Structures are given as structure tokens and as C-alpha cells.
């Protein structure tokens, strides 16, 4: 008797729990034959339309996890590392290639050479196929139009002429930290450390991110800043009093640092076939063209894909010749230097 009445009561509780569970599942319950899970650190506002187009064109349902700006676009990468032994994602779309290198070193990614990447220059691809670059940003100077004689190379940050007039985004995060690591690989540690010390002596201001740096310059609070090309193009399109300058373009200059997006297959991906289809799609000329003419204004890496008027085609830019593998290694190595520089 007791057992029966207990069973009845527990059944009531279980039913309630079941209804809650069904509510959850019903939100989840579209029966789609093929799905692909992608983690994305490119801004959602730009990446989502591309993924929606992929869904429409292929019928493959895309489940995406996007990064937030709060996480400085590293939240998804942390999840990939945390989920290494039990991968949930099939594809990772990173907004720069260094994370791809870190993930390769941590055995999180798998090799896949997409046929669509054949004519992307080798410098923007991993030789073993662990990641492939596409649609890039250039690291450029955004300069206020009131500045007559514009800075021409990154050493301007150390030039006393610009003392207290320049700003740079926090070098612990994002593309700024990657560029600093690239400078360490090009110049060597001693010269790069001297450059950092000179920046400090020159009272270079630190902003939270590239967007904020661009806003400071657009508002005339500082003369110039190193930012991503999309930050500069956006301010120019908004009619701000700013100009974009590609740094170090002299023949013997170190060149402009290029930051391509990178796409990679996850080791042990639950849906490898759909993952390859998505990677092929992202590496297509069509996707590069869309990303070039969207607000993110990215530079196509496929030869012959049209570039928006504000940007130079990749072939016309003196590109900084660095190995992203070396830059990734250097990035981890210089963390203590950067932390000390930031007085952390």
C-alpha cells in the first residue's frame, strides 16, 4: 500500500520533471538529417549571415556558438580546449590564425586540405592542413586628418615626435598581442623589448580594444593608432575625419601584418562530412567576396576576387613575411614580458 502510494506520488513528480524536459527538447526538436556544429570567434553580426547562406544552399543545419566581445573572442577557443576529450564542435572559425596554431599544438584540430584553398597563398595556410586562412584584415594606422605628416611605420610609436599622441589596444589581447609577437619574431627579442620600452617612454596610451582606439583617433583625442583595417574602414564609411595608412610599405620595410581568418576541422568531430562541406564553403571565393563587401571589409586572399574601394588588394600590399607557427610560439613565450610591460 505504502509502496503504491509512494509510486503514485513519485510518478507525479516525475511527470512534472518530464514535462520540463519535454519543453527543453521541443525547442531542440527540429528533425534535420544533417547538422554541423561550428564555434565562431569572428563577430556574429558578420559570420551569421554567411552560415545562414550555407544552411540555405546545402540544407545542412548549422548549430553555432559565438564569442562575445567580453571574452575578447577567446571563449570559444577555451571551450574547444576544455572539450578536447569529448569534442562537441566540428569546425572552428577563428578570426586570426594564432589560435589555430595553439589548437594544433594542443592536438585539438585535425588535418583537412580543402580543394577550394588551392590558390590561397601558402603563407596564409598551415603546410599540414591543420588550418587554412581566408578573408584577412590588415594591421593599419588609423590617423586623424588634422595630422599633416602621417606616421609611416610602427617605429612611430617610439618617435618622440608623437610623445603622448598615440594610442594602442591592450597588448595582452586580440590582434595587437599577435602583432607584437610578430614584431618579436621579425626583429628579435632585444630590439622588440627596446621598442616596447621606447613606447612606454613615449607615453603611448592603452585602450581596451581596437574599436576604442579607432574611436579615440576619430574623436581627435589621439593622432594615430594601430588598428585592424575593418576598424579604420568603418570609421571612414561613417564619415569620420580619419585616413588609413598601411605601415612599413617601403621596399626594405618589414611590411604590413596581415591577419587572416582561419578555419579548421576539429579532431574527433561528430559530423566530419558536414564539417568538410562547411570548410569548403567558407574557403570559397563567394564567401570571400561577401566578407569583403560587408561592414567587416575584409581583404580576399583568393586572387582576382573584387576588393572594396577603401582597401588595397592583397597583391598590392607589402605583406610582413612571418611564419604564423613561429608567431604562435613567440606569443606564449612573451606573455611574461607583456604582463610586466602592462605592470600586471
Amino acid at each position, binding site marked *: 500500500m505504502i509502496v503504491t502510494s509512494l509510486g503514485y506520488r513519485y510518478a507525479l513528480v516525475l511527470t512534472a520533471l518530464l514535462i520540463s*524536459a519535454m519543453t*527543453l527538447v521541443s*525547442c531542440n526538436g527540429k528533425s534535420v538529417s544533417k547538422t554541423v556544429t561550428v564555434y565562431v570567434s569572428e563577430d556574429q553580426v558578420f559570420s551569421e549571415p554567411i552560415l545562414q547562406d550555407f544552411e540555405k544552399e546545402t540544407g545542412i543545419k548549422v548549430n553555432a556558438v559565438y564569442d562575445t566581445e567580453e571574452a575578447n573572442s577567446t571563449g570559444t577557443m577555451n571551450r574547444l580546449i576544455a572539450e578536447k576529450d569529448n569534442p562537441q564542435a566540428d569546425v572552428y572559425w577563428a578570426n586570426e590564425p594564432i589560435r589555430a596554431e595553439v589548437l594544433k599544438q594542443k592536438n585539438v584540430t585535425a588535418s583537412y586540405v580543402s580543394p577550394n584553398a588551392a590558390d590561397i597563398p601558402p603563407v596564409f595556410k598551415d603546410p599540414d592542413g591543420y588550418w587554412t586562412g581566408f578573408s584577412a584584415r590588415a594591421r593599419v594606422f588609423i590617423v586623424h586628418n588634422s595630422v599633416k605628416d602621417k606616421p609611416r611605420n610602427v617605429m612611430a610609436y617610439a618617435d618622440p615626435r608623437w610623445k603622448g599622441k598615440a594610442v594602442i589596444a591592450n597588448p595582452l589581447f586580440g590582434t595587437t598581442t599577435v602583432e607584437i609577437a610578430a614584431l618579436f619574431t621579425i626583429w628579435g627579442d632585444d630590439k622588440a623589448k627596446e621598442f616596447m620600452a621606447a613606447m612606454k617612454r613615449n607615453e603611448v596610451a592603452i585602450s581596451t580594444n581596437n574599436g576604442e582606439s579607432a574611436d579615440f583617433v576619430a574623436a581627435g583625442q589621439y593622432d594615430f593608432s594601430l588598428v585592424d583595417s575593418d576598424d579604420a574602414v568603418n570609421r571612414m564609411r561613417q564619415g569620420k575625419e580619419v585616413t588609413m595608412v598601411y605601415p612599413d610599405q617601403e621596399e626594405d620595410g618589414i611590411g604590413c601584418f596581415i591577419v587572416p581568418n582561419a578555419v579548421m576541422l576539429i579532431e574527433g568531430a561528430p559530423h566530419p562530412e558536414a564539417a568538410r562541406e562547411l570548410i569548403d564553403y567558407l574557403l570559397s571565393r563567394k564567401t570571400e567576396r561577401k566578407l569583403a563587401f560587408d561592414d567587416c571589409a575584409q581583404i580576399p586572399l583568393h586572387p582576382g576576387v573584387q576588393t572594396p574601394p577603401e582597401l588595397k588588394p592583397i597583391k598590392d600590399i607589402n605583406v610582413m613575411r612571418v611564419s604564423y607557427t613561429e608567431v604562435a610560439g613567440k606569443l606564449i613565450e612573451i606573455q611574461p614580458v607583456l604582463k610586466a610591460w602592462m605592470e600586471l
Partner: protein
Amino acid sequence: MVRRLTLAFVVILLLVIGLLPVLSMFVKSVIADGRLSLAAYEGLLASVRQWTLMGHSMVLSSLVTALTVAVGVPLGILLGKTDLPWRRFFTLLFVVPLLIPPYIVAVSWFDLLGSEGLLAHVLGASATRTTARLLFGLPGCTAVLFSIFLPIPMMLTMIFLRTINPRLEEAGRLVAGWRGVMKEITIPLVLPGVLLSAMLVFLLSFGEFSVPNFLRYDVFPVESFTQFSAFYNFKAATAAAVPLAAVTLILLLAESAFLRERTYQLRPFPERERLPLIRLGTHRRWLFASAAIAGLVIVIVPLVVLVIQSAGIDAYAEALDRAGGSLLRSLAYAVAGATLLTFLGFFTGYLVQTKALRYWRSVDSLTIFLFALPSTVIGIGLISQWNTPWTNFIYGTPVIIILGYLAKYTALTSRISVTQLAQIPPSMEEAARVAGAGWFRRMAFIVAPLARRGLVAGWVVGYIFSLRDTGITMLVYPAGHETLPVRIFTLMANGSPQLIAALCMVMITATLLPAGIAWMVPAVLKRKVIG
């Protein structure tokens, strides 16, 4: 026996959902290569920066606590103890900022005072340079958190005012004026509530990350977050979270030592019992004007800014197009979360109220500890515990989000249940027991119906907090299951301000709607019954 078994099951559930993830994270942080290692903690202690950040957190939390208590307690007295006109409206108005995600309030103030905000369009960019500078930093952070947490001391003061036996004050009034009664009787009796509210505001400000991060004021939770997001160092991230947990524990121990008995005995007098009100007389007008101005500045202005910023059908059409699915998911998860929170909170509250198990006090402390713990810590703990091939049915589905809600917010529904259950005479349940009713029958047909107001209030609170959650959801949501607050966060990177403002308005509406219905329905029913 059934009672003990069920309550023990609830306790085990709480341990598995809440404590285990946090413990597993801690254990992993002190083990390296299979051996005990404190390297992560040594690095933390050696850094000067950590102490600076800790100082920032202390200063921010202390300022927010001092300000909210200084304003919230008099406001609570004004709204709960005087004949001020529109008291109920003002009470609801001031509660609004607490119900919406904190960063939305920060976004709204940025839209108003930022260098390219609405004020800059009206007065020119140079005029807003100072306001923008103040907004980004300690003053801005303090002001925004003040507006969000002000309802806590206000509401707790009002609740504690209702627990004072009216006869005490009436007796006091025979020999003294209201000033003397307030000083000698009322204020001392609401003091535990004031201290409790101060503790809650301090803990919530201390663990708050989104507002200081948005307004560029470095606080201690940033360190844990930076270790996680910039250096991929989970051990250091855990180590950086330990001081946060330690401060939380210390304050909880203090609460346990000085306040606990007072707050457990919280027993509001029934509404039908007329509470003596202070007649404001000639002060009524200026106090009404002051409350109206405060409500205007703290609540209405930020909301109006969002409405202006999102003006136009296009922004709302885009918002629904981009986030319609997320909105529906948010509602479904919040409903499921609130329902389960009500269940769990009811049984936990029952355990605490009846002291049915020996370790009832520890269970109560655990729920409060988890509530005060930064969401990042709980989120990382949940990933660390549930991300295994055997538990994919939890980690790979929205169940992980619901577990996060249960871990974080059970304290709220539990405390509401404790307060409600305290008003039910034990004799009711006792009589049913003597008549032969089993424990479940007593719960279902005696206790739950008598506690229905508390259950409804708990459900609404659970719904609101589940819906507005970003900290845990952002870390654990499975692909394709993002909620609306997460969507707003991810779209904030380069999304148009109009779109973000429209999404914020949709979010606010979804949050406040059930609260509004829960407030209005009983009033309408009451009117009908009287009619």
C-alpha cells in the same frame, strides 16, 4: 521516513548540481601531474596586480553598499511606512533595474552619456566629454550598480517593517512621537534586514563582472576571467576565483553568527492587520517629488534612452528576425528553470524552516554561497564536471543550462519558501498527520496550497533570474541553444546600436511581463470578488 528520504534526496541533488562542480574545479587546480601543487596559488599571491584588483573590488563594493543602504533604507521606510501617494507604483518602479540584466543598464547609460550618445547629439561632443569620462571608471560603475542594487535594501527594509508587531509601535506612540519610535523601536527591529541587505549588495557587487568590464574598471573577477580567456590557464583561473569564494564564505559566516536566527524568524504580519503609518503631512509634497525625480533618473531615463535608440519598426523587425528563436528558447528555459527552481526551493525551504535534518543550516549556507559565487566559477565547474562522453545527454543539451540555473538561484526560491512557510502554523500539518495523512499528501493538500503565494512569487523570481542570466549560460550553452541575453552579448560586437537597443527592449518586456501579470492578476481577482 518518507520526509527524511525526500529531503535527503533534495540535499544530494543540490550537492551534485552545485557543490560538486565547484569542488572538482578546486581539486583540479591543486593537482599537477598527479601530485599536490600550489603553483597556481603561489603565482597569484606573488602578483602585485592581484592586490590592486582586490583593492578596486573592495572599494567598488563598499561604495555601492554604502550608497544603496544610505538611500535604500530611507526609501524603504518612505514606501513601506508612510502615507506617501503612489507607494505601490514607486516600489515596482525602483525594482525594475534589478530585474533586467545589469549590462543592459550600463549600455543604456552609455547610449545617453557616451562620447557619441544622445546627450552628445543634443549638447555637442565636448559637453559630454566629462560625463563619458566619469561613466568609464569607478564613478560610472558605482552609479550603475547603485541603481541596480538599490531595490535590495529598499525591499528588505519594507519586508522587515512588516514583521514588526504593530502593538509595539502603538505602545511607543503613547509616550513618544514617530521620531522617537523610529529611533528606539522601528530602526533597531529592521536592523537585521539592513545588515542582510548590505551583505547581499556587497557580495553581488563583488562578484559582478559585466558592468565593470563594460565600463572599463578593472576588478578582481576580471583576473579569473583573464586567466581563462587570455591565457587559457584553467588552474590559474580557479586560483583567482578562490579569493572571491573566500570573501563570500567570510561574509556568510558573519551572517550566520549575527543574523541568521533573526532572518529565519522573519514572519510578516498578514496584510489584513493594519500597520501604523507615519503621516507625512506638509512633507508629503516634497517627498513625493523627490521619489518621482529619483525614479525618473534611476529607472525611467535609461528605459527611455533605449526606447529612443531603438525607435523605428526596422530595428524591432531585425531584432525579431535575428533573435526570435533565441527569445523563444529563453522563455522555454526560463519556464523550465523557474518550475524546477520552485520545486527545489520549496523542499529546501521546508528543510530549513522545519529543521527536519541535522545539517539544515549547511544546506541553507550552501545555496547562499552558490548564489553569491561568481557565475564564471560555477560555469567553469559545470563544464569541468559534465563534459564527458557519458554525460553528453546533459552537457550537449539545454539540461546543462538548467543545472546552472538550479545551482545559482535555488537560494532565492528557498528563502522565499522559508518566509512563506514561517507563516503557516505547524498545527495545520500536525492535525493532518494525526488524521492519518501521509507526508506527501500533507505537502500536496495542506502545505503547498497554504504556501501558494510564496510558490507563485518564487516561480516569478526564478523565471526572472533564469531569463536574465548571462554569466553561466554564456559559458555552457550548447551550440544552437543560445538564449536572448547571450545573443545580445554576441551581437554587441559590431552590431548596430539600434539593433542592440531593440533587443534590450524585447528582453526587458519578456522579463517584466510575467512579473506584471503576477502583480495584476491577484489585484483584478480581488476587485472582482469585492465587486
